[in-house]
Structure formats: C-alpha cells, structure tokens
C-alpha cells in the first residue's frame, strides 16, 4: 500500500479528520500500530513525528479530486495571523477509490487501529501530539519510564508539557500497549 492509498484509507476509516496536526499524528500512530510501511517516512523532530511526504501526498490527493480540505478560522496566533483548522474528508471520487481498497488486508488493519485509538480515549490533536512526543522519548530511552522521568526528559527538549496532559498521554500509550513496546531493548 502506497502513501496515497494509506491516507485515503485512514481518512475513510476515521470518517474524516479534523486538523493537519491530527492527520499527521494519527497517521503516525496507525502506521506504527498496523505495521504498514506506506513510505510516509516519519521522522522524529523536536516537535514530534512529522512526515513531509504526508503533506505532499495530501496536496496531491486534493489536486486529484480525492480529498477536500475545508478551513475554519479559530482565533489569532502569535504574530497576529488568524489561526485556521484544516479538515479533511473524501470526495465522492475518493470514496470510489477507497471502496476498492476496503477488502484489502491493509485497509482492515488501518480500520482496526483507528478503532483502537478511539477506544483508548480518542485524543484530540493536542493530546495526540503529547502522546507522540512521550512515545518518542520512551523509544529513545529504550526502557520503561515513569511519568515524572518522561517529563524530565521532555524538559531537555524544551517541551513544555503539563503533568496532567502527560499522564493522559501515557495512559493512552499504555492502553495501546505502546509503553512496553517503546521501552523494549
């Protein structure tokens, strides 16, 4: 399954995705949990996992009329710009393409893991970002860590994570069985 098929399947299985950050982080976790290597190539940045291929592929899927991006303003950010949320859903033609993928093994794994993420608390983009950062630290350390230890590590990266948010993120990772995975040697 290539990156375009993966993203169409992910948006379909998620019944649309609200926000660019949520799309990035959800794609990261679903790739990780499903073991599907679609070539998105997530890299660990200080702000969490990010795939430039994902950005380019979404732009291409929009051009091909498979995905539609709606933007909604919601407040002003530092520097004075209006902040906008970008929501993604499939067009009828995108749905037609996905309908042929639904019977594939990969699609079923994507759907299963979208359901797992939802069942584990269905974090919003902010919570999922923290979970991704916490996972990054755990994987880097290759050992089980307490919430306090993760927080201390996060400070080294200048990540300002509130203890409450971090605990929520760790609970989410635990529910997905990723804390053990991340701490494995």
């Amino acid at each position: 399954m290539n990156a375009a098929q993966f993203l169409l399947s992910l948006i379909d299985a998620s019944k649309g995705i609200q926000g660019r950050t949520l799309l990035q982080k959800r794609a990261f976790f679903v790739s990780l949990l499903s073991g599907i290597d679609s070539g998105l190539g997530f890299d660990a940045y200080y702000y969490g996992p990010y795939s430039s291929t994902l950005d380019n592929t979404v732009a291409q899927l929009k051009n091909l009329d498979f995905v539609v991006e709606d933007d909604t303003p919601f407040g002003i950010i530092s520097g004075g710009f209006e902040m906008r949320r970008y929501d993604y859903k499939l067009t009828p033609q995108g749905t037609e393409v996905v309908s042929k993928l639904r019977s594939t093994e990969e699609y079923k794994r994507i759907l299963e893991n979208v359901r797992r993420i939802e069942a584990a608390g269905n974090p919003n983009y902010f919570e999922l970002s923290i979970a991704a950062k916490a996972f990054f630290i755990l994987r880097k350390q290759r050992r089980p860590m307490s919430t306090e230890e993760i927080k201390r590590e996060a400070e080294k990266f200048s990540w300002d994570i509130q203890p409450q948010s971090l605990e929520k993120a760790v609970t989410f990772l635990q529910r997905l069985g990723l804390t053990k995975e991340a701490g494995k040697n």
Partner: protein
Amino acid sequence: MSAGLEVRDPIHGFIYREPHEHDIVDSKAFQRLRRLKQLALANLVYPGANHTRFEHSLGAFHIAGRIASRLQISPADSRLIRLAALLHDIGHGPFSHVSEPILRKHSQAEKINLKPKQQVHELISAQIIKEDPSLAGLILDTDRTKTVDLLNGEYGYSVFKEIVSGPLDADKQDYLLRDSYFCGVKYGVFDLERLVNSLTVHEDEEDKFLAISSDGVHVLEQFVLAKYYMSTQVYRHRIRLITDEMIGRAIGLGIDVDGIKWLKQIYSYDGSTDYIREYMEWNDERLTTKILEESSETYACSIFHRLRDRRLLKCIFDVKHNELTDPSSRMTVFTGSDDFHKPLEKLVAERWGYDKNLVICSPVTFKSAAKTESEISVIGPIKPRFFREESTLFSAVNLAINEQRFQVYAPAVYKDERDHKRQHREFYNDIIAMISKLSDPQASLSLEERGSAL
C-alpha cells in the same frame, strides 16, 4: 588575500565581491561549477541555454547580499548569508537535478544522515563546505559550520535561511531571470528591484521571517506568474522532460544493467572524504565523454549517443490528471511508482515491439510548489495576512500550477504526419486500456503476470 573585485554579469550588471569572496570564487571547488550546466540539456530546445551553476551562484550571492542589506541584517550575519548563497549549489553533480534520484537510490543510507525534505546533493554540499581543501584556508572553520547550519535552517532566525532557500529566495529570483535571458524567452521576467525593495521582516515572539509589504503584492504576483510560465515553457518543456528522463535512464541502466562500476561509484555517496574528493572531479562534459567511451553495446552509451545526436525518444502518450475520468486509473497513474510504471513500460514495449528499457513512464507533477508561496506573509497596516488571502490572482495561478500530467516516452518512428496522427490515436487508446487494467487493486498479479495478462 586578493583585492575586492567587480565582475560584469548580464543579469545584474556589476557584482561586487569582497576580497575573501573573490578568493572563494577562484577556488577549485567553486570553479567546478563552470562545468555544470544550469539546465542540463535544455540547449537541445533553447540553443542559448548553456549557462552554468557558476554564474547562477554569483547571481544568487548578489541578490542575497542586496536582500540582507535591505533588511538591515547585521554585517556578520549578512556575510554568512552571502556565503551560503554563493555556495548553495556547490554539491551539484553532473547534470544537476537529474542526478538526485540516482544519488538517492545508490547512496549508502546507513552511513549518511539524510533528513526529511533534504536532498543528497545538499548533504554533499555541506560536506564540501566543511571539508574541501581548496576552501580550507579561505573560510574560517566556525564560518563553515555556521554556513552549513544556515543552509539547514539551524542558524539564526528563519529569515536567514529564507533569503537563500525559501519561496522568495535569492536562488529563485536569480534563476528565473537568468534562465529566461539565456533561453531567449521573456516568461521569467519580473521587477527584481521592486521585489527586493518590498521585502521585509515579520516577527513573532520567537522568530523572524521573510515577508513582503502590502504594496509588494503585485510584484509578488508577477514573480509567481514568472515561475509558472518558466515551468510550463522551459522547465517542463516536453523535450526537456524527455532529455532529463533519458539522462536518468542512461545512468540508471549503466549502473543496474550494464554494470559500469565507475558510474556506480559516482552515485554511491557514503559520507567519506575519499568519495567527495572523487566526486569533485566530475562534471557534465567528463561524464558524457566517459560514457561515450564505453562499449556501444551498453545502454548508457547508446542513450548518450542518442542525446548527442538529438535522436530523442518521442512522447507517445500525454494525459492531464483531469482527463482521466476513471478515479482508479487516475489514482494509479499519479500516485503509483515503479510498481505501476515498470509493468506499463513492459506492456507498451511488448505491444509495439520496443526495447522495454527504452520505454519511460513519467508523471509530471509540480509537487504543490505553490503551497509555500500561499503562506508568504503580507504585512499590511492593520494585521499580517497570507499572500493567498491578499491576492485574487494567486488562486487561479495556484490551480494551474497544480496541474499534473502523465507521459510515456518511447523510440517511436513516424513515416509522415498522417502516420504520426494514426499512431498517436493507437497509442492513446491502447495505453488508456492498459492503465485501466493495471489500476484494478483486486488483481494481485506479479509484475510478470501483469505483463502477460494483457
């Protein structure tokens, strides 16, 4: 150290270099850029397009200096920005961008640390800046590191990198004007003076970014249009696309099928000093000559002979993304890679009796290049806005820029114009049918099975 020197340039008039910059230009590493053509074999379409990375680098350096001065950046940082612009192309290999996918394929990933969005030639540039002996005595060690960091966006404010590499960078400002001039076309012309004078800095609590003042919106539109027209008329010219693909295919086959060891070595970047030393000896002319000395039986040699004699492959199929009405076909054609291209090349070769290695599938996409332009900050009297919100023209250009095409090249021969038209009808109908069959995701056939299934 030499005295500073002015050099006359057809685009910018006099370009002044400080004594240390003059010495860098005279270094062996920089002089090599004289032997790398800016537009590879675009001279087969535009005979005047023989300009090189050398004069382009000088032009980018000149514009970067002007922008830094306009933005009142400190002398120390301005010096680094000019240096980064001067050296930004130092790591290009023979035929410049054509080399990149081959470098990516053959470089030793476990030994190099390629970051997302980073190209292999950029890593090579960084290593040359840090290690090249001809630059060693000319740039302080600390400045070498800072220059590399600046090119990677890891030194100072974001605006520093954006002057050298970004949607409004000095690189693009120079190459649009220069390529336009040497190709003898007017498509890339825009008001450079106005653009540079409209640039400003936008800052938030943490960083500073390159932006444009609200009275510069129209010149920015002109700049975006120039890029669009140059893309359609020069960079994406049909013949240029074919020659680029032929160079890439010749080198690829030379390594993978002909087994030419020296050729593989050029593209097997491993981060070592020995590799860089050898790499610096290569340029367009030397590579061409050496390939032409290989046995005429080799693909590499025979394709380079075709290029030398301008016996080019023909574009036998060309379709825009919105012409493919079947969504599955559109999906396969524009998002598939070798898993789709190779079976289609094989089918086309079998159908019309061509050598499958001389049939090339080529998706032509702009990779959402306009996305970054859309987010250029326009600084108005009340609040900043994005360029896409300020410019009514941009959305139309953006739509046009996003057009994607899919082409197939092959060694077709036409007896006359009538035969040309007849064959093209046949190519079109049959290739559409092949795409449709290959687009069926239910069919989990292997490459060979796919080939024989049709």
